[in-house]
């Protein structure tokens, strides 16, 4: 066990953990922030998506010892940025969630996308979001919500919310 200080949603947190403990488990079981979800533990599903310095990463693959001074943004803190707040609002307006389990990862991934690419093309949306599984398959509404958060019209073929 070693002590690490991470910058979590704008606050410094000291945590004690093994060097190889993934950030996912540090967040969930050491810090007690349960919003970031465990789905596969193997980089397939994106349920554990958080941002490191604004880039979406799979926290199940990120040992705590490699986080360093980078800013960690999770679903609990994503609404602090204007883009994140817009994404959350769009998710509610479109009523994206079914079970909701994947949606923390989806929202963080969508926020990372829109922070870098405010008006993404459909191909860019797909490329950024394809790593995030939604077992309930709410993909139609995820696309619609991203368009809404980006201030773009509802994508072709999708039903406007």
């Amino acid at each position, binding site marked *: 066990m070693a002590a690490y200080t991470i910058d979590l949603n704008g606050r410094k947190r000291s945590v004690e953990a093994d060097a190889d403990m993934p950030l996912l488990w540090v967040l969930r079981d050491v810090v007690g922030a349960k919003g970031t979800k465990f789905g596969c533990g193997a980089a397939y599903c994106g349920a554990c998506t958080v941002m490191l310095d604004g880039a979406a990463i799979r926290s199940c693959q990120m040992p705590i010892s490699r986080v360093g001074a980078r800013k960690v943004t999770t679903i609990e803190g994503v609404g602090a940025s204007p883009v994140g707040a817009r994404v959350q609002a769009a998710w509610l307006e479109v009523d994206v*969630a079914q079970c909701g389990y994947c949606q923390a990862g989806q929202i963080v991934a969508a926020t990372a996308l829109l922070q870098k690419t405010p008006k993404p093309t459909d191909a860019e949306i797909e490329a950024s979001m394809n790593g995030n599984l939604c077992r309930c398959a709410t993909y139609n509404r995820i696309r619609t919500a991203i368009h809404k958060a980006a201030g773009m019209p509802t994508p072709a073929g999708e039903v406007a919310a």
Partner: protein
Amino acid sequence: MNAHVKIETPRLSRRTMLRAGAAAGGGLFLSARLPGIAAAATEQTAARTLNAPTLNAPALNAYVKIAPDGLVTIVAKNPECGQGVKTMLPMLIAEELDVDWKDVRIVQAMNDPVTYPRQFAGGSLATPMNWEPMRRVGAAGRQMLIQAAADTWGVPAGECSTEPGLVRHGASGKSLRYGELAARAATVAPPKLETVTLKDPKTFRIIGRAQANIDGPAIVSGKPLYGIDVELPGMKYAVFHKCPVFYGRCLEANIPEVKAMPGVIDLHVIEGNKDLGGLSSGVAVVADSWWHANKARAALTPQWDEGPFGGHSTDGYDARAKTLAPAAPQQILRKDGDVDAALAGAAKVVEAEYSYPFVSHQPLEPQNCTARWDGDKLEIWTSTQNPEPGRQLIAKTLGVPADHIAIHMMRCGGGFGRRLSNDYMVEAATIAKRAGVPIKLLWSREDDMRHDMYRPGGYHSFKAGLDTSGKLVAWKTHFVTFSRDGKVVNSGDLAPSEFPAHFVPDLQFGTSMMETLIPTGPMRAPRSNAMSFVHQSFLDELAHAAGQDPIAFQLALLDQPGAHEGYDAPRMAAVVRAVAERSGWGKRKLPPGHALGFAQYYSHQGYFAEVVEASVAASGRVKAHKVWVVGDVGSQVINPLNAENQVQGAVLDGIGQALGLEITFAKGRTQQSNFGEYPLIRMADAPPVDVHFLVSNHPPTGLGEPALPPVIPALCNAVFAATGKRVRSLPIDQGMLKTV
């Protein structure tokens, strides 16, 4: 160091609840009896149910509470796993109670079968089972509020009416808000539910309007909601490493070595029993974090007795099915007319063999359960679709009285039928008992994929006859399925009423079975998710063989006069015609390489017809570009916002299954272990889904399932239309479709 997160259930979050009873808070409990349960409602027992469900809940139902400030608390009785029932059931109550939806707060009930009937999520049954009872609960409350107002004013109740949140006396113009009336209404004798008057649906203000997922704000901000999020003071973490072979047993394990690993608190072999839905044999690891527990598990090298299943494999089943299929069926399920004579007299005979694999549920939240013993009392927090059988299973397995077990139903991160089984509950209860501290058991994804109750595979041989006009006149099926101890496995049966039974005069369904030990269970649209593929694909083949348009061919069957035993052919014909219209079937000019495929299917009391527009690349890659769905689920779509979401999800789920999902077995083991080998549908493969409902004069029915079955054959039929190649087994073999 751990933060203890508050989980919002009635038991744990009293602060979020109004205080108990009229006496304490001046509020009203509306307790209502459902038919068959006779008990006087008392405020006190209702208070116990609403605020802190007890181990011995009284025999009454309590759903509604109104605070002096007008805030209405409604209990959602059923488990929520993404189907939207936590929003929908309270909508029914709120509508008839006549309150503003914005004034409603919803609390999730605990498992409490005495108070709340039929607390489960399955079979798309919440709507048909609760449509009327829940509205009657609300209407009874409204009647009590009216009575309280009438008593206050000294006027006949018949002169009073309600509008959202208040009672009005028309003649005098007086009105009182529900919050003001609540205390008095609580003293009014509750009316018999079957006597209350329900609203004219034309006056609905909540039902039929878009109501957002009640947990939406908590979901988008990452609040703890799910079983996996539960955290209790002093809690430790567990993994349970089961024998990879079904029914195998753990003989011994390298316990001392693994016990010395960081964070490990306890390690022990669990004998298990013979019931895979109960307790398997394996090694339980308890540690100070799940990470440590799971790391320790990876270092285990247990000796297994692989048992009777060690030789089973998918290849073995396929080979056995090949020998069974051409032989006479072991059993005839249905025999109408004389099928062999009709086939002999047919102008054209078409034969085909279809098959589909085992598939796995894979809800995104892995199975988990938190258990805390207090002496001989047990408290459980878990994501389950079916809590009461879980309670009974624990009681039976561990020898504790069922009424010593309390279950908190957490929001489920998906169910799809997996959480109808409660094996994880028994495991957690067993491990926590020995640990002496609260335990959160969490399965890895690999555990979840290797220890499912799978949708069984199946093999169908069809033979059908057409007359000179192309009319379907004979149908013969030999279905090879699986049995366990001589009985057909769960979800491996063919209904004798399967379409086109009743629509073809000479028809025979036969089955043969082969033994398996693989646990099977219902998966979203059980049976239908497979039966639709084989039957609707073969019907499409027959249409082409008859030289007819596939929709016209099926309409000719459906439009035949006569009754069809529980199947409303005109309802189906109507959705078929509507989907043809909406999709531009036969009329719309399609981009090069694109083609349309059609299928219809009746399941879970819903009539659905679907059209898929698809293309197949030279590489063999199948792409669905758009799906049109028309469904008839009766007179009322209760929450249109969620209804569309459910249908889109079910359709994309079906497309995902067709494109890539397959579970195989070798040496008694499941060969797939994570999403890399079990590719659930992703955004890139998810086309837009157009959803439309036809309203018919029938009681409303459910939507979790019936939109799924038709899309699989509709996609395969589109592949045929695009390529001339018939998909006769799932998942679609893209290699077969390759042209370069």
